[in-house]
């Protein structure tokens, strides 16, 4: 190397460090922190490593290993305290890792231990550039480099970068900045953006899941990089291609430069350089690059720690790795053996045998030969051909063999295959071979002939390359060959494409046709949604016609915010399309009355519950103050009052072996004694109640809160001890004649149903107190509530209270009165559906409706409609499992890469990260305005495109972040965390757009059958 180029090189190294430092510093400014695993940190460490290894006096220092900078660190540790600290840490870390030994350990020459069945999965890798990384995080790096620069003469050649008077100090001062940063270890959403690109991780992933079969998709091969020298001692070459080991490993995978045709692990080979006869297990792979087919074999030891090039005692394994170019091979000898899987020996042009490749059992040798034959096509072939049917038609096949026996393995036989260039221009081919080293163009042509990419794209490329060589006489033949090959490739590709498509379609048909509507409705004219103008067109004389148009406009463009109040009841099915204003007014009136009646019912019960709670609390506090012993000795009454949810599913207690039941048993007899509480009304109370109701009727405003509040106060004041009095339904009937009939009817049915429910639940044999036999029909004046009813509703009230108080409190709407409205709607629903009971998440579903309508009874009615669909998502329903199963199928069809990733993490099948999405129709994932937009589209989609639109929204959300998910190879915990952190930060319109596209995509797929 001349000193000029030497200098250029050093300048380049420094520039590289400078760039990476800048990157890290920028990251720290923009994100306020830099993650330890950030890609920029790795690049920086790589750049530093390159500088430090340039011109290192390996020989003089006795550093012969690839990771000589680590060795250097250990060396200077004796003289420098900073380095000593890091050196100690490095050794500690390396010792933690069973798969590697410290780079400074002296036993690196010991024979490698043969490790069988090494799983690639469970290896915990230390990061690259470990010591530099540690030094950086410990803020010692610049000081260590300072030391190196100061003592450069001892460790570096005199023309090394570190020894250079300028560059050396520049290097150490560059690193002062990064050394001042604090590096974070916590993963955050931001951090995900800086991790390695998706492609790389995907490629690696692909190989891990498909060892024995070639991947279905073959990539075009755009360019070729030099094949890797696996035992590089020359560190300057490391500087130009920094990640040799990484590249090598990548080269074992399907990647942008080479197609993987075959891969099999635990193939035994005795590497010639290993010097011992015992065959070692390793990974055998067949790669197709633009130039040729290559057979590679890599010892398992390297596969396990493959990103770590810088472990010295692994470096011997790099020597063992074998690469054979198929165009150097003439004969393939196959030896079959019943006991083993067979052996393949490759014989080169020079007549030299390559080391035998021993396949494990299970037809792997045959698979390998198959792949080899496929890979050789169309320009080369095996002679005789592998397939018997071909051998019948094959021209010039002199050595016909009973090939089926190869497949059946009945009787071990040996075969010899010759690799032939099938272009029948052997002389030219030989000639070309002679020319190879001299004529670049011809080499390329020859290379193209060796290749057989199935991609038409790459064929086109090779064709254009060949045209460059037209001047050469020999290439005419080649062009013809290339054209032929193109033809064949196009046809075969078309066929395989069609085949794959058919399979795909059958999956779609079996799993997914029910998810979308068959008829495709296009929305070209509906992009703007339901605007005021459209509304005026559609809403004529108080009648909203054209349901289809409303749904379509909503689906494709949403509803103008001011119109939501009017349109949503239609979308939810509360108002009927075509109904007149008068009809709707009547409906509203009915709704309102029914709502108020129901409310008065539960308000009465609430009053009782509150009173009981008060007593209980008083008891508890009294007890607390006088308490001296264990918490288990609470009076049984309190214990009962506070016991578990009566509606608890029976299965919940299966495991609850003894504790709870034992605890319950003694309670029972006591409970039965006071199972019934009869509430007898005093006249004054009734009068007061009716007065309240009356005045509220008149005021027609906030009736329910007032009545409730007053009711409670009233009760609180009046009720003494255990006797609680009320009979709201009768009181109500005094006020409204119309209401009278209905409400008393309701009261009866209500009581009937709730008791039925309780009965039926009790038969499950739950925490069950003895059955109540208590409803006394005789008490015509007073409402009779079973203890169970009171307890159940009380528990629900307790929960609702807690959850309403913390529902959307950051949204302006939810304060004071409006929280009470939310609570009223919630309690009314639960009272009417005591069998369902309150479940967390219901409040979330009421809230947006209430914000839009700001009207309790309308909200309640619409909420009931909404719940018809949503209730199935809650724990007692089964919709959630269906959603998860459908998600699985959808991902399989619409994003196979994602599916592959999810499939590899078994946990993904749970799809728990979608749980909240489906439970609440994405309500917690979005800000309020976006929730509105999502919800109305979900409702409209039922009519327009899909009754399972939520699935497509979920899929769209995944798609938006798919690169992040894929590139980080996130498992389900990562995804849960990621989406929890991303809540309310999504681009709702984009998600909606993608979801619509996905629906259309699936519709088209199905339609095409």
């Amino acid at each position, binding site marked *: 190397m001349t000193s000029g180029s030497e200098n250029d090189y050093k300048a380049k190294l420094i520039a590289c460090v400078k760039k990476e430092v800048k990157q890290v510093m920028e990251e720290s400014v923009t994100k306020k922190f830099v993650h330890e695993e950030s890609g920029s940190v790795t690049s920086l460490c790589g750049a530093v490593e390159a500088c430090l290894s340039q011109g290192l006096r390996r020989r003089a220092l006795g550093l012969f290993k690839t990771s000589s900078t680590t060795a250097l660190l250990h060396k200077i540790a004796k003289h420098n305290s900073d380095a000593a600290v890091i050196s100690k840490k490095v050794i500690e870390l390396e010792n933690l890792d069973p798969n590697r030994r410290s780079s400074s350990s002296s036993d690196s020459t010991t024979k490698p231990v043969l490790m069988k069945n090494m799983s690639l999965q469970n290896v915990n*890798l*230390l990061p690259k550039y470990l010591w530099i990384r540690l030094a950086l995080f410990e803020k010692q790096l610049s000081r260590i480099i300072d030391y190196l620069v100061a003592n450069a003469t001892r460790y570096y050649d005199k023309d090394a970068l570190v020894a250079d008077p300028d560059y050396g100090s520049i290097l150490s001062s560059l690193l002062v900045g990064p050394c001042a940063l604090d590096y974070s*270890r916590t993963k955050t959403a931001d951090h995900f953006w800086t991790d*390695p690109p998706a492609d790389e991780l995907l490629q690696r992933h692909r190989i891990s899941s498909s060892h024995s079969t070639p991947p279905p998709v073959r990539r075009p091969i755009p360019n070729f990089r030099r094949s890797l020298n696996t035992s590089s001692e020359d560190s300057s070459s490391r500087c130009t291609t920094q990640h040799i080991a990484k590249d090598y490993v990548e080269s074992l995978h399907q990647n942008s430069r080479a197609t993987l045709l075959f891969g099999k692990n635990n193939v035994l080979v005795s590497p010639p350089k290993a010097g011992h006869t015992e065959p070692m297990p390793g990974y055998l792979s067949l790669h197709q690059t633009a130039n040729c087919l290559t057979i590679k074999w890599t010892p398992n030891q390297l*596969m396990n720690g493959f990103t770590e090039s810088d472990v010295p005692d692994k470096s011997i394994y790099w020597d063992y790795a074998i690469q054979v170019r198929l165009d150097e091979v003439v004969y393939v000898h196959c030896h079959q053996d019943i006991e083993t899987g067979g052996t393949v020996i490759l014989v080169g042009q020079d007549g030299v045998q390559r080391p035998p490749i021993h396949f494990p059992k299970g037809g792997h040798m045959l698979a390998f030969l198959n792949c080899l034959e496929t890979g050789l096509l169309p320009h080369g072939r095996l002679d005789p051909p592998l397939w018997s049917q071909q051998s019948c038609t094959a021209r010039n096949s002199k050595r016909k063999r009973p090939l089926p026996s190869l497949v059946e393995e009945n009787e071990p036989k040996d075969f010899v295959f010759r690799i032939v260039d099938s272009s029948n221009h052997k002389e030219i081919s030989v000639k070309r071979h002679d020319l190879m080293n001299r004529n670049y163009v011809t080499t390329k042509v020859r290379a193209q002939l060796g290749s057989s990419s199935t991609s038409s794209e790459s064929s086109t490329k090779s064709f254009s390359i060949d045209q460059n060589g037209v001047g050469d006489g020999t290439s005419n033949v080649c062009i013809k060959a290339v054209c032929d090959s193109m033809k064949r490739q196009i046809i075969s590709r078309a066929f395989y494409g069609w085949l794959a498509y058919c399979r795909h379609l059958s999956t779609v048909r079996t799993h997914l046709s029910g998810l979308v509507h068959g008829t495709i409705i296009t929305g070209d004219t509906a992009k703007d949604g339901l605007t005021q103008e459209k509304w005026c067109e559609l809403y004529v004389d108080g009648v909203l016609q054209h349901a289809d148009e409303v749904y379509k406009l909503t689906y494709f463009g949403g509803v103008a915010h001011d119109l939501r109040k009017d349109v949503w009841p239609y979308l939810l099915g509360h108002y009927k399309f075509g109904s007149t204003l008068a009809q709707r007014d009547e409906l509203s009136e009915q709704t309102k009355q029914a709502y108020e009646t129901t409310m008065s019912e539960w308000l009465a019960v609430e009053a009782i519950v509150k009173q009981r709670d008060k007593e209980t609390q008083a008891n508890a506090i009294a007890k607390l103050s006088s308490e001296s012993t264990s918490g288990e000795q609470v009076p049984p009454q309190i214990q009962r009052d506070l016991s578990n949810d009566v509606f608890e599913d029976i299965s919940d207690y299966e495991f609850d072996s003894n504790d709870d039941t034992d605890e319950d048993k003694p309670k029972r007899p006591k409970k039965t004694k006071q199972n019934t509480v009869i509430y007898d009304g005093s006249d004054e109370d009734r009068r007061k109640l009716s007065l309240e109701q009356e005045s509220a009727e008149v005021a027609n405003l906030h009736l329910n809160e007032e009545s409730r509040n007053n009711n409670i106060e009233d009760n609180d004041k009046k009720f003494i001890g255990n006797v609680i009095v009320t009979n709201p339904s009768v009181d109500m009937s005094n006020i409204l004649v119309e209401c009278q009939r209905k409400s008393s009817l309701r009261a009866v049915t209500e009581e009937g149903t709730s008791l039925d429910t309780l009965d039926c639940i009790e038969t499950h044999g739950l925490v069950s107190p003895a059955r109540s036999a208590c409803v006394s029909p005789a008490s015509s004046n007073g409402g009779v509530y079973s203890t169970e009813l009171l307890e159940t509703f009380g528990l629900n009230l307790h929960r609702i209270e*807690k959850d309403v108080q*913390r529902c959307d409190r950051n949204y302006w709407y939810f304060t004071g009165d409006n929280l009470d409205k939310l609570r009223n709607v919630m309690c009314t629903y639960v009272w009417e559906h005591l069998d369902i009971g309150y479940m967390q998440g219901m409040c979330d579903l009421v809230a947006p409706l209430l914000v839009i309508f700001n009207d309790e009874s309308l909200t309640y009615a619409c909420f009931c409609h909404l719940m018809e669909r949503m209730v199935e998502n*809650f724990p007692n329903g089964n919709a959630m499992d269906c959603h998860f199963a459908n998600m699985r199928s959808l991902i399989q069809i619409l994003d196979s890469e994602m599916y592959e990733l999810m499939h590899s993490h078994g946990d993904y099948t749970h799809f728990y990260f979608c749980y909240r999405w489906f439970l609440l129709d994405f309500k917690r994932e979005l800000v309020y305005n976006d929730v509105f937009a999502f919800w109305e589209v979900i409702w409209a989609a039922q009519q327009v495109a899909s009754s399972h639109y939520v699935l497509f929204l979920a899929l769209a959300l995944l798609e938006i972040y798919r690169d992040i998910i894929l590139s*980080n190879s996130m498992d389900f915990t990562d995804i*849960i965390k990621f989406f929890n952190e991303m809540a309310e930060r999504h681009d709702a319109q984009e998600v909606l757009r993608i979801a619509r596209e996905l629906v259309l995509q699936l519709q088209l797929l199905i339609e095409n059958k």
Partner: protein
Amino acid sequence: MSARVNMRPANKNTLLKVVILGDGGVGKSCLMNRFVSNHFDEHSFHTIGVEFLNKDIEIDNENYTLQIWDTAGQERFKTLRTPFYRGSDICMLTYAIDDKSSFRNMNMWKNEFLYYADIKENTYFPFIVVGNKSDVLVEEREVSQLELETWCNENGIASCIETSAKSASNVQEAFKMAVQHWLRAEIRADRTECTYSDTVDLNKKQSDSRSSCCTGASED
């Protein structure tokens, strides 16, 4: 070869999975948020499904990363919650000191955890009991410290503490205590594991043989 292995280099911190359990509204999420981000939201939402956050903590010059799992408190959401118990290192049982029933339900939570976390019978597991909302007025208190201690004694739980996520009182301490407690359990388990160890503490119970090398922390 899982790619994520490469993404996550050997962490010098020990990763501990902490599950917080307890009735709805006792302040599980608030405890977590106070601990992780020293932030308290009076009106924070009830948790749907599960959430988790990570937090680094240093104890006795050792760094730990706590992966704290917050769960939905309503009993019915059990099927969603229980799969996450597996592989836990620490379980934090919580109740609110102004809510007797939440205290009483700890039995249920403890049993549910032991069952679904697949803890072998008679194996020691580091529970910690946390009585939250210690900021409430004296007259609102429904569970006394004595009751708490009694319950813990009866259930063989060594650590309990009263906290307030609202006033930030004892929250850091609670998590610290949990880790120290875990550590003691680990050391005890280690003793039974280590064969090369010269000293054997004959007084220590030898049954707590929770293997130290596969706590599940590294997998999760």
